[in-house]
């Protein structure tokens, strides 16, 4: 897929909670097709301590409005600087980067997002719904504050929630959710994105039930376009770049 570099115009910076925000960005040309799981490398020009671009999953795409959005958690200077962008500001993106998820072998699929890792699951749930699949979306977080815009997924599938402290949905980690003791066998694919320990746990449970599982990795990277080779992950076929050959990997191929 061809990659682009463009100055996008901020149309809205939506502060969802104290920690999470979604930036809506208008493309200066007609948006190319963007696949679930793909990401953008964002130039953070309003932070003096941020030198390299920051990779973010593409959250939502609206081809009619010619907009895409990024879901971001405030973690350091770069993300805090991005949270301060206002309508009319510009943001330089290299996009769309990386691969995408493969379609499930059967009707039902489980999509799992932990915290800000939920971002790629919105486009994926939309795509699966459009193609006639029945996705369940499991949203996990440390507390209810980390359950970000769960209502967005409702039009595309059934939404389930877990929090570590039980402040929303079931208490516990995503893999402790009752879905995994009940209907898990109905799923023909599991997709996950979130913190490493979460994805490892999901991969383990998927393997136990012999369900194909894909996870989207968030390795640190410099270029995002396959030049620096900093973001590699060990696979059974050798080192692969997260930016070009990922970020989505079949967990059976990874040395987790």
């Amino acid at each position: 897929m061809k990659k682009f570099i463009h100055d996008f115009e901020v149309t809205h910076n939506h502060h969802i909670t104290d920690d999470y925000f979604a930036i809506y960005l208008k493309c200066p040309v007609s948006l190319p097709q963007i696949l679930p799981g793909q990401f953008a490398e964002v130039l953070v020009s309003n932070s003096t301590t941020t030198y390299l671009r920051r990779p973010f999953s593409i959250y939502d795409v609206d081809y009619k409005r010619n907009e895409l959005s990024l879901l971001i958690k405030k973690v350091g200077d770069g993300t805090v600087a991005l949270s301060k962008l206002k309508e009319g500001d510009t943001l330089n993106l290299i996009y769309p980067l990386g691969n995408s998820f493969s379609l499930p072998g059967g009707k039902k699929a489980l999509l799992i997002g932990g915290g800000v890792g939920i971002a790629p699951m919105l486009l994926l749930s939309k795509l699966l719904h459009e193609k006639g699949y029945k996705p369940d979306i499991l949203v996990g977080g440390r507390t209810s504050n980390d359950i970000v815009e769960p209502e967005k997924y409702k039009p595309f599938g059934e939404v389930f929630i877990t929090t570590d402290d039980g402040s929303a949905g079931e208490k516990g980690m995503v893999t402790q959710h009752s879905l995994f003791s009940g209907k898990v066998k109905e799923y023909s694919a599991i997709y996950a994105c979130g913190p490493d320990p979460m994805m490892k746990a999901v991969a383990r449970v998927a393997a136990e039930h012999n369900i194909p599982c894909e996870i989207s990795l968030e390795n640190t990277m410099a270029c995002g376009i396959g030049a620096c080779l900093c973001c590699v992950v060990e696979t059974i076929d050798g080192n692969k770049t997260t930016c070009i050959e990922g970020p989505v990997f079949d967990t059976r191929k990874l040395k987790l």
Partner: protein
Amino acid sequence: MLDLSVNVHKLLLKNPVMSASGTFGYGIEFDDFIDVNRLGGILTKACTSKNRDGNRYPRMAETPAGMLNSVGLQNKGVDYFINTIYPKIKHYDTHIIVNVSDSTVEGYMEVAEKLNQLDKITGIELNISCPNVKEGGMAFGTSCPMAGAVTKAVREVYDKTMIVKLSPNVTNIAEIAKAVEDEGADSVSVINTLLGMAIDAEKRRPILSTITGGLSGPAVKPIALRMVWQVSKAIKIPVIGLGGISNATDAIEFLLAGATAIQVGTANFVDPQVCIKILDGIEEYCNRHGVQDVKELIGALES
């Protein structure tokens, strides 16, 4: 009519702007963003005699105005380069210079000898300065006898333009430059990355899997500039300057300090179009200063 061409030994570059090894893949990674043919040359990712997996992740740490890397020369080896990569890049209308590294002198010779057969590879850059491998790499570049020995050995099997990329992690870089010049280097590139380190204080652990790594980016520019100036006064062969160059002004400074050409490295990660912006900026500078020939700027520092 402005003349932007420069000569690096036998290589006539259409302009002094090249991409630095390890930051530009094989050029094809940048085809979506720029016309690679406009560059004076491209320096490929390092090529070794055998496949190398490189170091374990994490390989990168962002630092103030720069970054540390410890990729560790990941590449599939010279035979893979010749059979699979070369056919995809030989159409470029620019100089393709392969960065050559290995763990042994014999390894360097094997790679150079094989590359000598490829028409469109018009030169090699001997990497005797990679700080991220246990054996070879920088070990060859930090002593005059070792640097001279590997240069001499490769010179015997390689008859096109041979550039030697020098390490800044030495007490006197000019001495190393003289040693490789004496053994037949046609040019030197100055500098490779500076050995550095980053720590995650919260976890009390190093960030890089290898603990130390190579520092690059704007943070190293003043050091690189000083070393280009020192080396260009000490030797007669052309110096190619690199280290933190991010815009045309930086590039001009390196030319004034004595560089015949420049390489753009880490800045490619931030802006994949930066090489072309630098090229256009050099042209603009020349026009603004009434410079007819960019060669007038080489070593033209006034003091």
